[in-house]
């Protein structure tokens, strides 16, 4: 393609000046970018209010996107379900029969649990969720893993509240706007969640890798007790995440820990639940099974 002819300034002083000015303006834009970047690196929360306001403004479009995403997913599920329904139906019948027996057992365990807790004088740790919301948007073109939920300060959300779906932990609230909030997903590299193995309470930290997997780092080094298929749940240390929230399943053993897959894939969830920050109001008794083996 031939170069556009009108781009040469030639001998015209006016054209030369305007070329010079446009380059100067470009350099000024670079300097402004550097200053903004330095500010946001020095104090990461500096632009939180601007970002939240922008998220509030685009919330309706995000809601529509969330609805259409979930519609598309359900349509695909319905079509694939049409082909596998017979097999699925038989399998579900079998599992239902099994689950009914398990349910009766679980009810008995729950009753016993209540009785023992009353005996110990422990308060129930369950509390009502703060809000139910949709994940409307995420930063899918960035190396950071953030998402936006369509509930904000007006719904009682505050910084640090854990966010979970029915499958497990999703993340925690980072910035709140009036009607939307930014969530730090557990797969982000800055997210650090104290966890324990669901079966015996081996303590560890779970840090995001940034690519959808989670790095489990054991606290007690030595022989690595983890095995493939172990489920890690949040331990509640630090008082942020409610203990016992399912989080990740171990897929690959490493020397000092493991790589794990998250249980609650944020792209598969329709609604998420925002919970209160779990901070024990009183010091638990020393032998409490809820203290996560720490």
């Amino acid at each position, binding site marked *: 393609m031939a170069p556009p002819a009108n781009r040469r300034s030639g001998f015209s002083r006016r054209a030369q000046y305007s070329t010079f000015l446009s380059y100067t303006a*470009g350099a000024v834009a*670079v300097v402004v*970018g550097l200053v903004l*970047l330095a500010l946001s690196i020095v104090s990461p929360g500096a632009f939180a209010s601007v*970002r939240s306001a922008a998220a509030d403004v*685009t919330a309706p479009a995000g809601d529509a996107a969330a609805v259409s995403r979930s519609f598309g997913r359900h349509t695909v599920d319905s079509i694939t379900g049409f082909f596998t329904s017979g097999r699925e139906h038989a399998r579900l019948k079998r599992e239902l029969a099994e689950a009914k027996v398990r349910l009766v057992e679980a009810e008995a365990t729950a009753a016993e649990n209540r009785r023992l807790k009353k005996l110990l004088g422990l308060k129930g740790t369950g509390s009502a969720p703060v809000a139910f919301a949709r994940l409307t948007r995420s*930063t899918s*073109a960035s190396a950071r893993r953030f998402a936006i939920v369509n509930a904000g300060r007006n719904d009682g959300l505050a910084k640090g509240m854990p966010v979970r779906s029915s499958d497990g932990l999703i993340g925690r609230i980072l910035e709140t706007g009036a009607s939307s909030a930014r969530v730090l997903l557990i797969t982000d590299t*800055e997210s650090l969640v104290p966890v324990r193995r669901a079966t015996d309470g081996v303590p560890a930290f779970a840090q995001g890798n940034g690519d959808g997997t989670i790095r489990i780092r054991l606290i007690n080094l030595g022989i690595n007790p983890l095995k493939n298929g172990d489920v890690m749940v949040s331990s509640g240390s630090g008082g942020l995440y409610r203990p016992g929230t399912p989080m990740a399943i171990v897929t690959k053993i490493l020397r000092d820990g493991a790589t794990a897959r998250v249980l609650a894939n944020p792209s598969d969830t329709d609604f998420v639940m925002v919970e209160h920050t779990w901070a024990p109001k009183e010091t638990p008794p020393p032998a409490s099974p809820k203290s996560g083996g720490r």
Partner: protein
Amino acid sequence: MPMLSRGGGPARRSINRAPSPLIALALPWLTIFLGSLLPGWVLIASAPVLPPVGFLLFLSWRQLRPGLLPIWSGLPLGLFDDLFSGQPFGAAVLLWSLAAIVLELVEARVPWRSFFTEWLVAIGLIVAYIVMGLALANLAGAGAHIGIILPQIVISILSYPLVGRLVAVVDRFRLTPFMAV
């Protein structure tokens, strides 16, 4: 029935007509704003998998119509992208402005262009943009490994010609003469 007669060719229909100056000026900016918003809406991703559509549109517009977007356009467009991208605030302002200056210099040095030279220049800028975006995010507190952006780089490079086609379609619409003069 003049509305239903399709006999006149493009020349007949465009006679005494001019493109709307508002649309001709605003459409590139609007498409780039929309492109900055789009990847977030498509899916709730667990890894950086979608191309930075806003940046690809920005490059495409500047390559298709050099001089239509001024060199400083990286400032307002990047500010908007920073609001939604999740990168540390200011990263897009810096990188988009640098990209605009580099493109301007390349165009002054290599005025004769073809599809492959333009794609090659764009590939260089896209790879630099994504790698530097990761570096800036890591500087601001993340600790991500460089391996996580490789899929995004490949997807961005391959989708760039498609973005270019889209920009060409929008450009045709932008210059459609439909206002009576």
